[in-house]
């Protein structure tokens, strides 16, 4: 793999960065939060991003996409991460879209992929359950096969962009027991399905997340995404892709936090000099800079490993998620410390990054989870 952007990628990176800069300053995300906006993102901005083609990047040309790869995808999420743009890229494109693209029947793909890529419909995936931590095979939600389809019962938590979604894809156990890899099936449930209640939850990073309660929800067999009992593998695969995209976002976030810290060090005066002239702070900044650079390398490598279907791609993915989790937290902690009292105020934007760093760490497995997975993949 070559860890360098080609011409097209450089152009894409530039375009996305400028769009986000012009259309999504952090003040936009703050306003959504202060307004207690139920959607938590802007349908309008999302539609513009779709019109620019970014939602299409990863889908095949057959499905109406651009047939590009993760190397391009992480450029989009990085730019979004820089300004904490809350649009449903990871939920709708990486999770739901990819699940349908890779596992959906022709009918499901025709019905849902076109509006997803067009930015007209938003779908979410509910896989997380309260108290089940990071192992997606731990599922309390059940799906029982009946005469005409399945009946689902259970509850999902923190379903990202689940509130207001046009449909939610949920994981449910069709056979086996808690912790089994087999016996999990993915079901697509349109928003008006009887028995499904979607409640907005409020999280520290102000993302749209929702509780999805399922009470005797009937789902036709045609709405199974992927194969019955084999949804665990599909979900894992899709989450791996989404993890790389999230790492891109985290890279953008930590870069921005670092840049803000550095700018503050050059401007804030104490004891008659800028604080950036204190050697202890300089050394800490230099170390944080190294963390950003290392993170950039592992994100690029993970994206390319996926694109090349590298035999060690899982190792690259866990390397990226572990490193980005630790680095994003370390950098935002340092930044808040260096911003001093100002960093503790809600008025200063740096705090948003510190909150997002935690939420991102705990999405798709935290640093420890991925270090454990790394060791297991290495065979020790």
């Amino acid at each position: 793999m070559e860890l360098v952007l080609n011409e097209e990628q450089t152009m894409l990176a530039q375009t996305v960065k400028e769009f986000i800069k012009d259309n999504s300053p952090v003040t936009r995300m703050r306003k959504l939060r202060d307004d207690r906006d139920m959607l938590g993102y802007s349908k309008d901005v999302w539609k513009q991003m779709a019109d620019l083609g970014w939602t299409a990047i990863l889908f095949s040309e057959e499905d109406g996409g651009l047939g590009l790869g993760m190397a391009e995808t992480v450029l989009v999420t990085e730019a979004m991460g820089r300004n904490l743009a809350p649009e449903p890229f990871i939920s709708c494109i990486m999770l739901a879209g990819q699940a349908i693209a890779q596992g959906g029947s022709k009918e499901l793909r025709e019905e849902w992929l076109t509006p997803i890529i067009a930015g007209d419909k938003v779908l979410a995936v509910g896989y997380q359950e309260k108290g089940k931590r990071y192992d997606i095979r731990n599922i309390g939600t059940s799906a029982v096969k009946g005469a005409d389809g399945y009946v689902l019962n259970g509850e999902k938590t923190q379903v990202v962009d689940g509130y207001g979604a046009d449909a939610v894809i949920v994981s449910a156990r069709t056979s086996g027991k808690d912790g089994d890899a087999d016996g999990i099936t993915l079901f697509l449930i349109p928003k008006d399905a009887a028995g499904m209640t979607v409640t907005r939850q409020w999280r520290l990073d102000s993302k749209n997340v929702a509780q999805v309660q399922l009470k005797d929800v009937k789902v036709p067999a045609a709405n199974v995404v992927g194969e019955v009992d084999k949804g665990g593998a599909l979900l894992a695969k899709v989450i791996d892709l989404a993890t790389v995209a999230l790492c891109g976002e985290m890279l953008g976030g930590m870069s921005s936090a670092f840049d803000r810290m550095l700018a503050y060090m050059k401007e804030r005066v104490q004891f008659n000099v800028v604080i950036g002239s204190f050697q202890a702070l300089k050394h800490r900044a230099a170390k944080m800079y190294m963390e950003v650079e290392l993170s950039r390398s592992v994100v690029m490598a993970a994206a390319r490993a996926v694109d090349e279907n590298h035999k060690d791609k899982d190792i690259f993915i866990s390397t990226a998620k572990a490193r980005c989790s630790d680095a994003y937290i370390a950098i935002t902690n340092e930044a808040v410390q260096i911003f001093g009292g100002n960093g503790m105020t809600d008025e200063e934007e740096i705090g948003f990054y510190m909150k997002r760093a935690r939420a991102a760490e705990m999405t798709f497995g935290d640093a420890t989870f991925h270090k454990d997975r790394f060791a297991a993949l290495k065979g020790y």
Partner: protein
Amino acid sequence: MADLEEFRASVRSWLEANAPKSLRGKMRDPAAAFWGGKKTPLPYPDSRPWLDMMAERGWTIPFWPKEYGGGGLDKEETKILNEELARLELPPPLTGFGITMIGPTILQYGTEEQKKLYIPQIIKGEIRWCQGYSEPNAGSDLANVQLKAVVDGDDYILNGQKTWTSFGDLSDWMFLLVRSNPDVKKQAGITFLLTDLDLPGVEIRPIKLISGASPFCEVFFEDVRVPRHQILNRVDGGWEVARALLGHERTMIANTFGGRQSAAESPENPMEAAAKKYIGLKDGKLVDDAVRQRMAQNQIDEQSFLLTVQRNGDNVKAGHRPGPETSIFKVYGTELNQRRQELMLSIVGPESLGWEGDGFEKSELDLTRVWLRSRGNTLEGGSSEIQLNIIAKQVLGLPD
């Protein structure tokens, strides 16, 4: 000896007869702390009578001199009183900066008139005090005081701003540093002043923090007239007072983060409880070994820290000079607390991401805020960087 036993008996019977039954057992209830003054809500209906009956005997600060309304108790008697309060698990009747900071400072620097005036008010909890040190462009550079004080007759006229004033909105009076002389070295032109916050021209605005709470305020002064007899120590002699007072503050912070329990005690441990709930044991060991090791490290750090606080106290009690300086406690205690809160997040996992409302338990929502709040620990009361500078210079003798 017999006298002491007699004293204990009288304290005990008085407490049993008079201390409000509703407050018994609330010794460790942080919500039972009463900060006094006119604006702070009562924690419990009986908090006010409890304060009043104790203040009458001077027992809100039992070892302060009787002439100013203190209890006048000696070391032994104070210990007995505390033991008897603990026996009924009664909360302290009064807490606050009056007791821990400005009171001792007035006793040290005040004129006889000032002592007679302010100390009884403090003891009775009549006014709640807040601190006016920090200013917006000062940060760690505390001597960079810009708030102007200009003499006009018997008054100073104040113009400028303070910030990071804890509970300024709930306080009655402020002790603050003002720039009384702009033409000398910055430390040499500062005066230490006491002022009523209800004076015309004072405006108090809470600061919203990342945790969502607003425990601090900005306090603006526009042509505020403060009588000149309300200065402490001499004109332009405020820096000396400020430093003495900071010493009192650090001791207080160390006590807060070090916890008041002695190191040997093993109270029910919230971290262990959370780990068992959110992660679970298998064969008597936490399933997540990484968390298990971080917990052991954190608890070892905590025990080491508490033992160091204790060692310092034991040294002082034994009449030796204190061992490690209080700056250690501030740096280590606050960073330890941050590590503890971060570990708690790792233990609780995704459920720790809640902000409010549905789908999160109250304890989970509380944790999020406590963690965010803990980030400020290494900034307030002298940042970790400042404390490390102090240790390097004052304890280790390293040059500037």
